[in-house]
C-alpha cells in the first residue's frame, strides 16, 4: 500500500513534480548519451589499434624492443611463425623485419619504420589492405615495391609509381640504400601511425639488410577473438620460451590506461550531473513534507511508526527520482542506438582526432554494465536526497502538527 501512496503523492502537485522529473530526464539522458559517445570513441580506437596497428600479440627477441637494434632478430623466425599458425585460435601470423630508415624523394626525406612483410600472411593479421586509397598491396611493381601512407605521400610529394630511396644501416653496420617504387598508398584513421610506417616485401628487405634467411624481428599474431589471446600467449611461450611474447595491452599499456580512465571519467560525469540534480530534489521534498505537516502528524498520531513514515518519504523520493531516471535512461539508450548506426560526423575536428588515432565518424556504443550502474546511481541519489526531508518529517510532533487554532 505504501507504494501506491507514494506514487500517488508524487502527482498531487503535477507542475512541481514535472519540473523535477524533466530536469532528471534531461540530465540523465545527456549523461547516458555522452558516455555512449565516449565509449564508442574508445571502442573504435581499440579496434583500430588491434586491427591496423598492434594486433593481439607480438613476439620478439627479448632485447629487440628496448634497443631497436637490427641484430636482435629471431633466428628461423619464419619457421616459428609457421608453427604459431597451427595453434588453436590463431587467425594468422605476420612475420616481419623491422628497420629504421630514411625515405627520400627527389626533394625531401623523412624518418620511417620499414616493415618487410609477406603480403599474403599480413592480410590475415592487419587490415591495412582495406585502407588502400590507391594502388595495390605491394603488387603491380616488378622490382622493390613499397607501400606508403597518404600522410607521408603528401609530406614528400609522392604519387603512385614515384621513386623513393630507402637508406639504412644493415646488419654489418654499413650504410646502404636502394631504390623503391610506390606500389600503393594507404590511409588509416591514425595519422601518427601512418606517417611513420612503410611496407616492403620481406625478401627485398632481407637482401638490403643482409640478415640471414628466415630471420624476423617481429611476429604479429591475430587471434580469433581477444578472449583467447592469453591462452594463445601461453601456447606461444611454450613454443619459444626464450622469446618475449606480449599482448597488445602489455605493448601499449597507455591504451589500457586510457580505456580505464575513460570508464572512471564517465561515472564521474554522471555523478556530477546527479549532484546538480540533488539540490532540486531535496528542495522539492522539503516543500512536500512542509505542506503535509498535518497529514504526517495525523499518521504519527494514529500509530504509524516513525520508521514507516521515514520509509514512506524515502520511497516517494526514490520514485520521483526514478520516474525521471528511467525515462532519461531509456531516452539516452534510444538516441545512442540511433547513432550507433547513423554515426556522428566529427570530421571538422578530423585532423586533431586522427593524430591520436580516433575515428572522426563516431558510432556510439551502449555498455550494459553502464546502464545498470547508472540506474543504481540514480536510486542512490534518490535515497540521499530523501534523508534530510525524511528525517525532518519524523521529527514532527503529532500533537503540534495537528493543533488547530
Amino acid at each position: 500500500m505504501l507504494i501506491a501512496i507514494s506514487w500517488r503523492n508524487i502527482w498531487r502537485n503535477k507542475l512541481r513534480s514535472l519540473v523535477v522529473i524533466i530536469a532528471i530526464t534531461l540530465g540523465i539522458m545527456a549523461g547516458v548519451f555522452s558516455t555512449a559517445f565516449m565509449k564508442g570513441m574508445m571502442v573504435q580506437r581499440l579496434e583500430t589499434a588491434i586491427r591496423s596497428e598492434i594486433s593481439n600479440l607480438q613476439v620478439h627477441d627479448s632485447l629487440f624492443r628496448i634497443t631497436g637494434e637490427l641484430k636482435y632478430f629471431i633466428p628461423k623466425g619464419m619457421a616459428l611463425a609457421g608453427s604459431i599458425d597451427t595453434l588453436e585460435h590463431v587467425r594468422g601470423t605476420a612475420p616481419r623485419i623491422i628497420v629504421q630508415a630514411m625515405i627520400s624523394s627527389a626533394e625531401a626525406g623523412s624518418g620511417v619504420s620499414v616493415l618487410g612483410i609477406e603480403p599474403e600472411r599480413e592480410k590475415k593479421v592487419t587490415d591495412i589492405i582495406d585502407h588502400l586509397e590507391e594502388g595495390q598491396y605491394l603488387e603491380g611493381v616488378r622490382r622493390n615495391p613499397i607501400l606508403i601512407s597518404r600522410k607521408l605521400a603528401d609530406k614528400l610529394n609522392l604519387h603512385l609509381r614515384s621513386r623513393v630511396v630507402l637508406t639504412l644501416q644493415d646488419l654489418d653496420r654499413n650504410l646502404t640504400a636502394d631504390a623503391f617504387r610506390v606500389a600503393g598508398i594507404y590511409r588509416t584513421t591514425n595519422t601518427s601511425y601512418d606517417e611513420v610506417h612503410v611496407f616492403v616485401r620481406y625478401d627485398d628487405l632481407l637482401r638490403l639488410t643482409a640478415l640471414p634467411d628466415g630471420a624476423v624481428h617481429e611476429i604479429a599474431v591475430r587471434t580469433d577473438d581477444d578472449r583467447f589471446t592469453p591462452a594463445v600467449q601461453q601456447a606461444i611461450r611454450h613454443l619459444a620460451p626464450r622469446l618475449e611474447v606480449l599482448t597488445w595491452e602489455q605493448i601499449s599499456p597507455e591504451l589500457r590506461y586510457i580505456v580505464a580512465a575513460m570508464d572512471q571519467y564517465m561515472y564521474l560525469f554522471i555523478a556530477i550531473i546527479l549532484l546538480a540534480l540533488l539540490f532540486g530534489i531535496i528542495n522539492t521534498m522539503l516543500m512536500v513534507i512542509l505542506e503535509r505537516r498535518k497529514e504526517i502528524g495525523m499518521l504519527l498520531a494514529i500509530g504509524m511508526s516513525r520508521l514507516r513514515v521515514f520509509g514512506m518519504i524515502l520511497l516517494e523520493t526514490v520514485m520521483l527520482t526514478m520516474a525521471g531516471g528511467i525515462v532519461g535512461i531509456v531516452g539516452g539508450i534510444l538516441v545512442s542506438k540511433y547513432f550507433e548506426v547513423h554515426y556522428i560526423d566529427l570530421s571538422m575536428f578530423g585532423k586533431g582526432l586522427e593524430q591520436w588515432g580516433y575515428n572522426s565518424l563516431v558510432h556510439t556504443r551502449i555498455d550494459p554494465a553502464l546502464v545498470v550502474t547508472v540506474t543504481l546511481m540514480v536510486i542512490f541519489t534518490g535515497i540521499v536526497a530523501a534523508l534530510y526531508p525524511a528525517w525532518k518529517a519524523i521529527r514532527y510532533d503529532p500533537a503540534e502538527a495537528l493543533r488547530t487554532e
Partner: protein
Amino acid sequence: MKSPVIAWRNIWRNKRRTLITAASVFFGVIFAAVMSSMQEGSYSKMIDNVVKFYSGYLQVQQEDYWENKTINNTFVLSDSLSGAIARIPGVTATAPRLESFALASSDELTKGAVVIGIDPEAEHRVTNLERWIIRGRYLHPGDSGILMGDELASYLHVDVGDTLVLLGMGYHGVSAAGKYPVAGIFRYPMPQFNRQFIYLDLKQAQELYWAPHRITSLVVMVRDHYQMPAARQALDTLIHPPLRVMSWDEMQPELVQLIASDRLGGKIFKAILYVIIAFGILGTVIMMFAERRRELAVMIAIGTQKRLLAWILFLEIVFIALLGVITGLAGSVAVNTWFYHHPIRVAGEAAKAFTDMGIEPVYAFSLMPSVFYNQVITVFILVMLVSLYPMIKTACLKVPQALRG
C-alpha cells in the same frame, strides 16, 4: 518600502529553500569555473609547449615551403628585412632556421632525425633552448657540435663527446653528409622533441645541406597570443611573394582542432549542468509563487500594480541567484588562483599516458577573465529565462480566484 528591500526579505521567508537553491547555483558556478580554468590552462600549456619550443607564434617562409618541405624551398633573408621585422612593435625576438631531415648514425644504430640549423643566441631568445640542456653545453655561434634530445641519444647509445654522422639530402638533390661531435643533450617536457630533434649551428647546417645563406624559416615571437594578430598585420605589409607569413594555428591545425573539440565538449557538459540548475531555480520559483498567490492577490486588490509585483518577484530570483554566483565566484577565484600557482602534477601510469600523447603531465589552471565572467553571463541568462514564469503568472493572475484559494 523599496522593492529591493521587500524582495530581499521575501527570499528569507523560507530560509532553507533559498539557501539550497543558492547552493545549487554556487555548485554550478564553481564547478564550471574550475573546469573552464583547467581546460583553458591545459590549452595554454599545450600551445605554449609547441609554440615556445618549436613553431613560434609566426614564421616567415618561402611561399611553397609549407606544402613542400624541401631544402629547395628555402630563401635568403636580407638584413634590411630582418631589421624591419625586428622593429615591429610587439615582436620580442626573431630566429632564423634551416630545418631538414637526416639519418643520424652512431657506431651501432641509425635513426631518422629532424635537423635544425640555428643561430644559438637568437634561438635561445626565442625558445629558451639553453634552459633545457641536461648534459654537456649549449652551442655557441660557429659551433661544430650538435645538441640532441635525450631519448634520441639513448636510442643511438651516444652521449656528450661521441660523434654522430648525419646523412641527408641537400640543395638541388646533392647528397649531404657530415660528422659532428655531440656537444650537449637536452630534455624538453614533450617527448616527441626529445626523440627527433638535433640542433646544429646555422652556418654548419647550411654547409651540410649545400645551401649557403639560405633558411627554411624565420621564427617571429611575440609576448603572447593576444599580441599575435597585430604583429601579423604588420608582418603582412612587409612580406610579399615569394615569401609568406604563417601563424602557429595554420602550422598546427591538429592542435587547433583538438583544442576546439575539447572546448566544445566542455561547453556541452557545462550547458547540461546549467540546464539542470535552471530547472532547480524554476522549481523554487514555482513553489514561491504558489504559496503566495493569495498574498499577491491581496496586494493587487488594495491597489498595487501588477508590474511592480512582477518586478519584486524578478528581484527575488536575482537575489537568490546572486547569492550563489557571488559565493561561487569567490570560491572559484580562490581555487583557481591556488592551482594556478601550484599546478597539479600527474604521476604514474597517468603521467605516461599524457606524455605518450605529447602533453606535459600537469593540470594547469588559467586565470583568464572569461573563465569567470562566462559563468556570470550564463546565470544571468538563466535568471532571465526562469523569471518569465512569475511574470506570465502574475500577468494572468485573476484576483477573485486567488483570494479564495
